[in-house]
């Protein structure tokens, strides 16, 4: 058993919180530049130029890309040959979020209760997803998630007879209904199959995939392409002002389904599609 001190995990989470919020991924920047070249709307072009400038300013000054520095969503892939020492893993992750959001001048956007709404003032607790995997490493992924785009997400329990068309229509309608709200150009994460919660988690995980990579299954990579074309034909465009670039990418993840069910979840991310990872 390899020993890993949870204090090292806390430090990593703090650093990843700042890194993810200051430094837009190269894949996203490349995708924004490609969208700028392809954009036909002058207003849309102007917005894309602003977004690319903004990413540069944030990186140069090490300040948040967006003031909404998000819910701290943390994925942990925990090697089964790792022995965690030094305390509680969940507490260590929250300690890391507290440190990263405090020292990094990131906004504290979490309220302790969904109805009574008192701010926890340190952006904790994080939403933590842990998978046990083979090996003796710990992989941490920090994916801050803004509220504006998260609010535009949708889930539906479709039935098998709805077929591929039903799935595609549901996803395109979710993007259409979202319109200007989720800060387009967006990234569309889709989870199909499993149960209600499995589909939602797959949709979230789909947002972690590098832009430019498609589903490994040719049927689903073709579906991703078809949906991307359909949503970009909606005309929503950058910031919803009209144009081609409504979405930068559509990522689909799937899981086996019950004979009676076909759950579909759509998790929308804004153009600040943030995630950073580290392996300990």
């Amino acid at each position: 058993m390899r020993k890993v001190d949870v204090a090292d995990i806390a430090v990593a989470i703090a650093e990843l919180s700042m890194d993810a919020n200051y430094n837009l991924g190269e894949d996203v920047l490349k995708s924004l530049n490609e969208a700028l070249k392809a954009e036909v709307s002058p207003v849309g072009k102007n917005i894309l130029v602003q977004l690319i400038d903004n990413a540069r300013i944030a990186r140069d000054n090490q300040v948040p890309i967006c003031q909404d520095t998000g819910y701290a969503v943390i994925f942990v892939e925990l090697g089964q040959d790792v022995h965690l020492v030094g305390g509680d893993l969940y507490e260590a992750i929250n300690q890391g979020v507290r440190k990263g959001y405090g020292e990094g001048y990131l906004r504290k956007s979490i309220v302790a209760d969904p109805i009574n709404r008192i701010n926890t003032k340190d952006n904790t607790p994080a939403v933590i997803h842990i998978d046990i995997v083979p090996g003796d490493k710990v992989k941490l992924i920090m994916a801050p998630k803004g509220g504006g785009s998260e609010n535009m997400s949708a889930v539906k329990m479709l039935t098998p007879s709805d077929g591929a068309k039903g799935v595609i229509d549901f996803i395109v309608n979710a993007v259409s209904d979202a319109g200007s709200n989720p800060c387009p150009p967006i990234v569309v994460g889709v989870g199909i199959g499993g149960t209600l919660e499995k589909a939602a988690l797959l949709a979230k995980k789909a947002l972690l995939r590098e832009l430019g990579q498609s589903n490994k299954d040719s049927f689903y990579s073709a579906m991703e392409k078809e949906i991307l074309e359909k949503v970009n034909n909606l005309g929503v465009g950058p910031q919803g002002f009209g144009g081609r670039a409504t979405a930068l990418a559509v990522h689909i993840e799937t899981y086996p389904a019950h004979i009676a069910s076909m759950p579909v979840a759509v998790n929308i991310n804004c153009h600040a599609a943030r995630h950073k990872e580290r392996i300990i």
Partner: protein
Amino acid sequence: MKVKKISAPLRDEDVMQLKAGDNVLISGVIYTGRDAAHKKIFDLVQSGEPLPVDFAGQMIYYVGPSPAKPSEIIGSAGPTTSGRMDAYTPMLLELGLKVCIGKGSRSQAVRDALVKHKAVYLASTGGAAALLAKTVKRADLVAYSELGPEAVYRLEVEDFPATVVNDVYGKDLYEEGRKKYEITNLKEVD
């Protein structure tokens, strides 16, 4: 692209110059306020108590900035989704507010109130928060410090960029822009 420059306080005739789709640069004073501040102001109006700000002729920006670093005037400061303020906006327009700034579409009730009270809704670029913060030259706390990022600040800005979405003539840039660039199967057949 022609850009119109505006500053508060604004009169009806200033606002009537602004058309959906216009790019504007704002200089001078804007007030911040989002969900919690709107609710507090709404409650004060309901109970007839004095307000922390006289909104007549002024602009309000739906923003909850990230904390400022010691060397900064303000942290990153992009717009939040305006739809959540819809319930409160007609009341502020009645008080004389002339410009609200955020992102995303507004309810029909807000759009009608903008026409009625001769006011406009502008969008600034959601997620361009570091860029927008650079236009802020001064930030003073006005009310509700207990709300943290949701407190009301008086900002002085210089060439803050925004786009007119809803004008006093009932036009909506989101609807028009989308219609202009939509590709339907019907059009492909044409």
